[in-house]
């Protein structure tokens, strides 16, 4: 079956600094693909390349078998929904207006919304628990609430692939689980492919069916959580002591950070 996203030998550099080097990945349809790695490893850059927001310096990005360059912006937006890290805006759009922006790829140039679009937006806001904020201005919300609004917007895009950049970064515990569950639900109910960058290794282990571990722009590990998340790999990549065992909840690893007082001297 055609991979949802296929990256072949892609690379990227900011000026002269190479950020990614000849990465080749294949993401299957319906995957819950989670990218982890230390800061500066190139996670966000990789996601942006997959979303078509920046162009690779070499190699090829394929979406559902087609080279990304052959998509028009509109069609790409219908295929991929991208949720960026937190952005601030000075324009007083309401939550409802922001979520409805997700319908743009499906509407004409002027894009006047129909009742169906509004119903979809309400449903999406219900999913992420922001429907009670529909009339509030975006710049009056907390970081976490904003993030859920952006996720609702991405859901509205009705695309088969969702790319999220650290979606749980500003969320409290309840909402972290809720968002991760939501992605799982979308995967199962609608067959959506989820590609996520996460800083939380445990969440990645709990939910992902495939993990990609990046280090300094190269692949340090790719496979199932049990394959990738081992204490040797983590210690080598992150440079700190960790304890990895099996979670009591299921067949996935659990990572515990080890404070220095537990490390025997010598």
């Amino acid at each position, binding site marked *: 079956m055609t991979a949802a996203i296929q990256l072949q030998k892609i690379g990227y550099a900011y000026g002269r600094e190479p950020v990614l080097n000849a990465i080749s990945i294949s993401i299957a349809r319906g995957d819950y693909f989670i990218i982890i790695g230390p800061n500066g490893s190139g996670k966000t850059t990789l996601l*942006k390349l997959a979303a078509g927001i920046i162009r690779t310096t070499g190699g090829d990005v394929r979406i559902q078998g087609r080279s990304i360059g052959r998509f028009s912006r509109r069609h790409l937006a219908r295929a991929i929904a*991208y949720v960026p890290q937190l*952005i601030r805006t000075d*324009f*007083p759009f309401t939550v409802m207006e922001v979520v*409805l922006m997700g319908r743009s790829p499906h509407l004409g140039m002027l894009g006047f919304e129909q009742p169906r679009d509004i119903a979809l937006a309400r449903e999406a806001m219900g999913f992420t628990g922001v429907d009670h904020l529909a009339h509030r201005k975006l710049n009056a919300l907390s970081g976490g609430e904003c993030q859920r609004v952006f996720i609702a917007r991405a859901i509205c895009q009705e695309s088969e692939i969702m790319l999220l950049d650290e979606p749980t970064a500003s969320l409290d515990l309840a909402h972290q689980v809720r968002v991760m569950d939501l992605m799982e639900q979308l995967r199962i109910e609608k067959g959506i492919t989820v590609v996520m960058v996460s800083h939380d290794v445990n969440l990645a282990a709990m939910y992902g069916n495939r993990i990609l571990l990046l280090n300094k722009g190269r692949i340090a590990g790719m496979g199932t959580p049990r394959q990738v998340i081992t204490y040797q790999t983590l210690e080598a990549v992150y440079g700190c002591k960790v304890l990895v065992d099996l979670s009591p909840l299921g067949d996935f690893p659990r990572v515990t950070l080890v404070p220095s007082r537990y490390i025997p001297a010598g």
Partner: protein
Amino acid sequence: MTAPLHATLKRLWIVSAVLLVFFVLTMLAGLCAGSSDTGVRRVISVLVGGEAADPMLATIIWRIRLPRVLLAAMVGAALSMGGLVFQALLRNPLAEPYILGISGGAAIGAIIGILMGFARFPGVGLMAFVGSMATLALLLLMTSGRSVLKKDSLLLSGVMVNAFCSALIMFLVSITQDARLHNIIFWLMGDMGMTDLRQAGFLALILAPCFVLFFWLSNAMNLLTMGSETALAIGINVKAVSLVLLTATSLMISAAVSHSGLIGFVGLVMPHLLRLVLGPDHRVLVPASILGGGGYMVLCDLLARTLPRQGEMPAGVVTALIGAPLFIYLLKRTKS
């Protein structure tokens, strides 16, 4: 369930209707007022009765006041639209149409035209237009294609170009000694008094397609304000749209400024005020800016003509006197 809380199209019709009434009323007021002190009733009788009623007044209304009122409306609409588009393009609600140095270039072109002895129209107007377009080209060269997406570099380059143009203008003014100095000062302060229907029609030909284009791109402008990455991700070709918006806006503002001189504060205050009242959706703001900005300028020009006991004030003075305190008030409202 109650009526959909987001009926943009319905809101658009209502807002447009209200502002259209405002616009028409200001146009009528503009036709009624003037330095020859004719009463409102006499004006209405001419408007209704035709030329036979009072040929001298009919001449004044149709051939002196009407072109002026039309020009004011179009310049006000163009400047408001320019401010609106630049605010979306630069993602900054404080941007205004002269921010990228277009006004500086237009002024230099106009001054050179006046010094060379050209007539107001088409000579000086054409020179102003060439000057502003040259400034735009310079700006694009300085920032280079890719960085058009990076709003900060565009903004900073614009500020630099403006500063340079200001210095050049001061130099040109300082070396001019004769009656042409008077013409230059009046052009710089905004003067719509000497226009006729032909010139007004010419401007309308340039502005109309620009307005249509901006309305067509109003949804894209909404998305642009969310950041170029978000806009890209939701399907907007940010680079192409930005370039089109930049060029069309510069064209529109240059054309307006070539006819009227430099009139400030309209492009800053009007979009801000409308956004505060009507919300940030550009599909509503674009027609609102055209009608609201046009009506506002007609009012300011009316005041400029009628307030002073002797002669008239430059329109730019009125827009500044009203605009500056209004803008400070708006800033306070948005902060709270």
